[in-house]
């Protein structure tokens, strides 16, 4: 976090300690000329020892990159063009060499010079050094400083990245033959189609691919998570302490601006001056944006467990782990990141947050210090990259992504953005939480499967009903008068019993109904030898009413010599029907066939056909009799259920429209069968005792007519009594209201 004291540079003018890379003193602004001692022009034992082991190739690379820098290149070109300029530089070089001859030349310098001569690097070294000196003395020195600082930063970052990558590869090498890490393969397994697209776009991103940790495993991530939590806590404590101290004391070490803010601080002018760097950053930003965007799945594929962290979701992991269905807007996301308390930033992705939190604290310091120029601020940035080395090493991808996200979301100048980044920002800003968000936009950790949503809804309903006031309890205020009920029941029973006991039953004068007459007419049309199917569907409870009407019908059919076949789908009708047949002394060999499956069985017999490839189970069950519905002339339904008759007429009968259908049912079914009789689907029917007269039955054979009439009379009286009681209650209430 803090620099080592032995690396500090003491300003010769004011004595202020400055960081090694600082070009000017942060207090007095005096140039620290002896900074560039690495080229051997200046010497100190400490630095010599430290740099003696450094190979020359990196230095030449550094200088070569300096040459390639367009800022310097332009200047050098200008200087190279006039011949006088070169001569003067050669003179200055000779002067320096002459000055150097006065001093004892160390061995390393001799080697450097020898190598420089061999590689013609000496000239470059000399020219570069002279050019730097000249540039520093010129008005455009700031640009040189900025370019150089930028190069230095990149070099450091690159070396740090290499170190981190090497160390991780040593720790783990769980990549497959395609170079895909385990976490990526697991994600692909979860979302294969999406991942293919991701891969394509990542390849397109090129440079951004390098910024990802492509060799992290779950164990490593877990370890990293633990490490980061502990480091962050330690760092945050230090940061807080340092920030407090630095505000009070000399801010020698406090110019810590995280690299996250580098892009943010780039001004348009600098962008113009640094086109190559800007483009490279933009490329990286675009690649990272694409990668970060692709980490948001389009399909509701799965709920990834909380412990399965992967880098692609670095930003998403910053989201609080709430059952939130929709992702917040990116701007809000940034707000959340900055507003997150350190305790909440326990996940590896919180590197971004930690950096930003620190930056927010350190921005205050930076602003308070008012650096004299931008170059100084950039030095501070470079310092930060060194100071925060552990963080960057541990979460390089997070930092890279956070750089990009920061560049995108934290008011980066529009000119510095890629079009894709702009579109992404606009798209994100256009998100509205009030509107339903498709699953494509929902973060994978926040996605709920349909089953889970329904479960959540169920639980929500259950919880929601807790404490809800019951509105009105049904019949709560209706007190049951059991005594009154008993009196009514006894009255009815007494009336019927008395009617049964006293006097002979009178002949009822019941009206003849059209449907009953039609039934008899249909029955009379049956000729000898015609096949009549009788379907039994009644219960033991209604057997007396049904059988009273069925017996004369069966007897008539028997007398006519019709060919009767009885079927039933009710198990109870197997013995009820047998008892009926036995009581009438009908055909002894008449058998009742059981049709399994109820109405499905009847439908199968009516609409189904015998398959060519074999027989069906139902056919085998009726092997002895064949299809009972085949070649029938009439069907008589004996049922106590209007629903059964209705089902037959609507589903079975249409498949055999030539078969005439009639029915025997209870009085309760009469009203519902009337429409079918009116439409002609039912040839006729008799329903209950009221229709018994049409069958030339004396009603007294069915029931005692006097008891019947007594019961009906009592029912009428009771109904009228109920109406009178209600009217009386109402009038009493009205009177009470009038009195009140």
């Amino acid at each position, binding site marked *: 976090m803090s620099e080592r004291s032995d690396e500090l540079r003491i300003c010769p003018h004011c004595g202020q300690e400055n960081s090694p890379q600082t070009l000017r003193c942060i207090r007095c602004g005096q140039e620290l000329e002896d900074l560039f001692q690495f080229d051997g022009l200046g010497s100190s034992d400490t630095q010599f020892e430290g740099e003696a082991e450094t190979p020359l190739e990196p230095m030449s690379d550094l200088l070569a990159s300096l040459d390639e820098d367009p800022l310097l290149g332009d200047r050098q070109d200008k200087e190279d063009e006039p011949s006088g300029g070169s001569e003067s530089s050669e003179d200055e070089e000779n002067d320096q060499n002459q000055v150097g001859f006065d001093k004892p030349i160390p061995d390393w310098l001799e080697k450097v010079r020898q190598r420089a001569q061999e590689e013609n690097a000496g000239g470059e070294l000399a020219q570069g050094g002279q050019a730097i000196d000249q540039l520093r003395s010129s008005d455009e020195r700031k640009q040189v400083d900025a370019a150089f600082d930028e190069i230095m930063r990149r070099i450091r970052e690159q070396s740090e990245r290499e170190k981190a990558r090497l160390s991780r590869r040593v720790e783990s090498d769980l990549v497959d033959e395609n170079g895909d890490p385990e976490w990526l393969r697991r994600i692909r397994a979860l979302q294969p189609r999406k991942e293919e697209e991701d891969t394509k776009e990542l390849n397109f991103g090129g440079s951004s691919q390098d910024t990802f940790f492509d060799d992290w495993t779950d164990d490593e991530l877990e370890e990293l998570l633990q490490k980061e939590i502990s480091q962050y806590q330690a760092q945050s404590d230090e940061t807080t302490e340092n920030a407090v101290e630095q505000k009070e004391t000399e801010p020698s070490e406090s110019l810590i601006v995280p690299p996250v803010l580098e892009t943010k601080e780039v001004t348009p002018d600098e962008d113009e001056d640094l086109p190559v760097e800007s483009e490279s950053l933009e490329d990286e930003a675009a690649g990272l944006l694409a990668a970060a965007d692709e980490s948001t799945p389009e399909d509701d594929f799965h709920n990834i467990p909380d412990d399965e962290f992967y880098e692609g979701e670095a930003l998403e992991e910053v989201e609080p782990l709430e059952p939130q269905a929709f992702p917040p807007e990116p701007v809000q996301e940034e707000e959340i990141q900055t507003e997150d308390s350190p305790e909440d930033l326990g996940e590896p992705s919180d590197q971004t947050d930690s950096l930003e939190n620190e930056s927010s604290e350190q921005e205050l310091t930076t602003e308070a210090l008012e650096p004299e120029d931008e170059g100084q601020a950039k030095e501070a940035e470079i310092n930060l990259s060194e100071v925060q080395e552990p963080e960057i090493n541990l979460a390089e991808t997070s930092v890279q992504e956070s750089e990009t996200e920061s560049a995108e979301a934290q008011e980066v100048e529009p000119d510095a953005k890629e079009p894709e980044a702009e579109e992404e920002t606009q798209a994100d800003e256009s998100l509205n939480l009030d509107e339903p968000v498709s699953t494509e936009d929902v973060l994978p950790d926040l996605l709920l499967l349909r089953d889970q949503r329904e479960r959540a809804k169920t*639980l929500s309903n259950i919880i929601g009903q807790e404490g809800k006031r019951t509105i009105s*309890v049904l019949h709560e205020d209706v007190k049951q008068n059991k005594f009154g009920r008993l009196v009514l029941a006894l009255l009815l029973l007494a009336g019927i019993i008395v009617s049964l006991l006293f006097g002979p039953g009178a002949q009822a004068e019941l009206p003849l109904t059209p449907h009953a007459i039609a039934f008899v007419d249909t029955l009379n049309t049956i000729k000898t030898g015609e096949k009549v199917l009788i379907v039994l569907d009644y219960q033991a409870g209604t057997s007396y009413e049904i059988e009273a009407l069925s017996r004369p019908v069966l007897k008539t059919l028997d007398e006519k010599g019709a060919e009767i076949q009885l079927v039933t789908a009710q198990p109870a009708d197997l013995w009820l029907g047998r008892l009926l047949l036995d009581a009438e002394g009908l055909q002894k060999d008449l058998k009742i066939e059981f049709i399994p499956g109820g109405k499905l069985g009847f439908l199968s017999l009516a609409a189904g056909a015998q398959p060519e490839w074999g027989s069906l189970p139902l056919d085998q069950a009726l092997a002895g009799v064949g299809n009972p519905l085949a070649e029938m002339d009439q069907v008589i339904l004996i049922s106590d259920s209007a629903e059964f008759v209705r089902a037959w007429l609507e589903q079975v009968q249409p498949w055999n429209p030539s078969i005439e259908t009639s029915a025997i049912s209870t009085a309760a079914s009469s009203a519902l069968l009337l429409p079918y009789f009116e439409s002609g689907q039912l040839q006729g029917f008799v329903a209950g005792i009221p229709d018994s007269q049409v069958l030339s039955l004396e009603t007294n054979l069915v029931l005692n007519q006097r008891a019947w009439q007594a019961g009906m009379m009592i029912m009428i009286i009771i109904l009228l009594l109920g109406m009178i009681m209600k009217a009386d209650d109402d009038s009493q209430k009205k009177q009470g209201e009038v009195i009140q």
Partner: protein
Amino acid sequence: MAGISLHDLISTLIVILFLLVMFIAWLMGKNKKMPPYANPEGYERIDELMHRSSEEGKALLMGLGEGFSGLNGSLGDQTSLMVQRILMSRSVFNDQPAQSYSGDGALACISQMIVHGAYDKAMAVELFRPEHNQLTGLSGLSWMAGLLPELARSDNTGLVLAGSLRPESLIITDMAERKEIPVVAATGDISGQAALFASGAPVLLGEDYYLPAIGDINQASYQHSARVLNLFRILLAAGLLLAAFLKLSGVLP
């Protein structure tokens, strides 16, 4: 075997017309300005019973009717299963579990699945017991005979009758009233509706039975279904009037 008859053509026409009406109703449903239909009263009472069961910690009974697998031709029990699903989704964590009684084997099995699904969805499968849902008989009266003893228990908070109910079901409502247990009857059987209307129990008449909306559950489906039925009813009425006019004018034979 007959070919495609007039009945087939008419039914095909009705199906196509029905699909068209469903589409129109769906479009009408987009109009947010249309006031929603109120829930049928019977289903509102079922909602009250559910809350009462939850508050009192007593069992809520449900009679599912005769069943649809064999002997009964109506689709009414499909609706009763939907009612059961809604009811179970609210009562899985009640102190006393809701009990269901079926009058048919297939109905018992399917309702068993529904009860299990309700516990599963509430992540409380360990609370599921097969005895919460039983077959009580293979016919209307035997089903009633099996249900009556359960109704006589003291720890019942209410009874919901839903499904294919015969007029004889009046016995059940009477016994419930004598036990001061609130009853709600919902059946697609018309004779059953007529008989149950004479009782004091709230009863769903006509096609209201097919529009289950309990509280805020199933509201979207209910609103859409009610709109479809209303539109189709208007169309049918217009068709009947037209047919009557054509018949009277001698156009139709």
